[in-house]
């Protein structure tokens, strides 16, 4: 006899609301249905009531983890309709901020995943490391969460002492190489809870159009930093980790390896930071009538913004946001099919979901 188990909207493993109705037989999940929209705030519509400065502050609040990425993508799209290009120093500062954000997002996820595996010491270790990354972000921007760094034509704050940040990054890299990476890649607990669990095959990943670490863990080597480089990524050397297995362990490995790649990018970007202005200094812009689209590889995958403007207007005519979790979440249905009920919180967490992003 099958029965339905509703999980959420107050989730046992994650802090944001969403609901998964699972049809089970015994302890095995036969099928599942997802319900989102608990965080629907109508942000895209609100964006049409904000001017070019206010809209940046608004869209920074779409997501609390990748707030920099959202303003970066928005500003790149607005630079398209304003005919502005950020100077080289700003492009490097954008890379540095984006990679620090990827680090703190991946380490945060690693901590939560550890907690769900029943590995609470690791949770504490990850959060201690994450605090240090947030200290660096605060040292650069003055803020821990919403950094207010991006503007049309560059960034608002310079990095005045890259050598000191480089030291902090090297220390972080050492700690992660000593503790987080070996434990996640070799520990028996991690292996037993993650290997062969929540599989998303390559074919399913292609069909669903998933992005980011979830796609890369299913054998798809897609990463906008390589495929369609933006900011200063074309000038930096790094690899895109790909794993073929499509299970929770593969997602864990991809993120662990990405942490090391981010450190590699940060070391290069801080060493090569070019001299010059960090923004164009313009305050007023001549927006032309039209639509501009920008894409950025966020910690969870591709973010896309389409910004439409009418010449002479104070506000954008339309701002559309396509976030990574929006395309990755439907994959949960396939990941939990056939799984044991006890594994489903970890499977859901393994996509590193952001419901605020998804609902907007």
């Amino acid at each position, binding site marked *: 006899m099958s029965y339905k188990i509703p999980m959420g909207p107050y989730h046992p493993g994650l802090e944001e609301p969403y609901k998964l109705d699972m049809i089970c037989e015994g302890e095995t999940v036969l099928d599942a249905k997802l319900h989102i*929209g608990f965080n629907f705030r109508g942000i895209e*519509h609100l964006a049409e009531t904000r001017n070019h400065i206010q809209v940046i502050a608004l869209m920074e609040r779409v997501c609390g983890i990748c707030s920099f990425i959202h303003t970066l993508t928005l500003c790149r799209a607005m630079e398209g309709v304003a005919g502005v290009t950020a100077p080289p120093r700003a492009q490097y500062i954008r890379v540095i901020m984006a990679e620090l954000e990827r680090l703190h997002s991946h380490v945060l996820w690693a901590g939560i995943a550890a907690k769900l595996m029943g590995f609470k010491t690791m949770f504490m270790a990850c959060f201690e490391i994450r605090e240090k990354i947030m200290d660096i972000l605060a040292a650069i921007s003055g803020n821990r969460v919403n950094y207010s760094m991006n503007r049309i034509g560059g960034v608002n704050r310079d990095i005045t002492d890259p050598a000191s940040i480089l030291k902090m990054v090297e220390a972080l890299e050492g700690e992660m190489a000593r503790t987080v990476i070996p434990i996640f890649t070799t520990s028996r607990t991690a292996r037993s809870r993650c290997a062969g669990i929540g599989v998303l095959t390559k074919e399913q990943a292609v069909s669903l*159009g998933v992005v980011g670490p979830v796609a890369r863990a299913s054998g798809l080597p897609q990463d906008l930093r390589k*495929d*369609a480089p933006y900011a200063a990524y074309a000038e930096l050397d790094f690899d895109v980790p790909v794993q073929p297995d499509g299970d929770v362990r593969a997602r864990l490995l991809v993120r662990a390896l990405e942490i090391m790649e981010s450190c590699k990018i940060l070391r290069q970007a801080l060493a090569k930071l070019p001299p010059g202005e960090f923004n164009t200094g313009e305050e007023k812009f001549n927006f032309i009538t039209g639509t501009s689209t*920008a894409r950025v590889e966020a910690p969870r995958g591709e973010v*896309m913004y389409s910004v439409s403007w009418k010449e002479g207007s104070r506000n954008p005519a339309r701002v559309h946001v396509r976030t990574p979790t929006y*395309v990755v979440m*439907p994959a949960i249905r396939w990941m939990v099919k056939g799984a044991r009920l006890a594994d489903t919180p970890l499977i859901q967490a393994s996509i590193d979901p952001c419901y605020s992003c998804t609902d907007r």
Partner: protein
Amino acid sequence: MSPLDSIPEKLGTTDPWVDKGGVHWLALDAAKVRELAKAMNEIHARFITITAYQLPKEEGFRLEYHWDLDGRLLGFSFQITGKSIESIFDLTEAADWIEREIHEEYSLDFVGREYEPLLLRQGETSGVNLRDVVAASSKEKI
């Protein structure tokens, strides 16, 4: 012939690709949306999203479909004078949620599919134009 160059021929158009605003655009008739989805599947392009624009007065809607082909962003813009367009959900599984979202927010009908609520909660009406609802309620408050 590259996969990108083969698309106009497959869709029976002689119009060239136009590079604008970071996107390779191709002008197509809305009746060709399903042919487009099939052509994109054939060249293994990745579906990204649909962006809906409500046009002023009675001009209808503009829908922009986006796919990624090896890092290139492809865009196809369709002008809709009525309130419906054929669904591509059965051809492109990834289009499921965005079709449901646009139906909920703009009351546009994607013909050939059923809807379940996505962003809206129980008790709220699905398939109404939320912008019109918000505009009407703002006037009432004034």
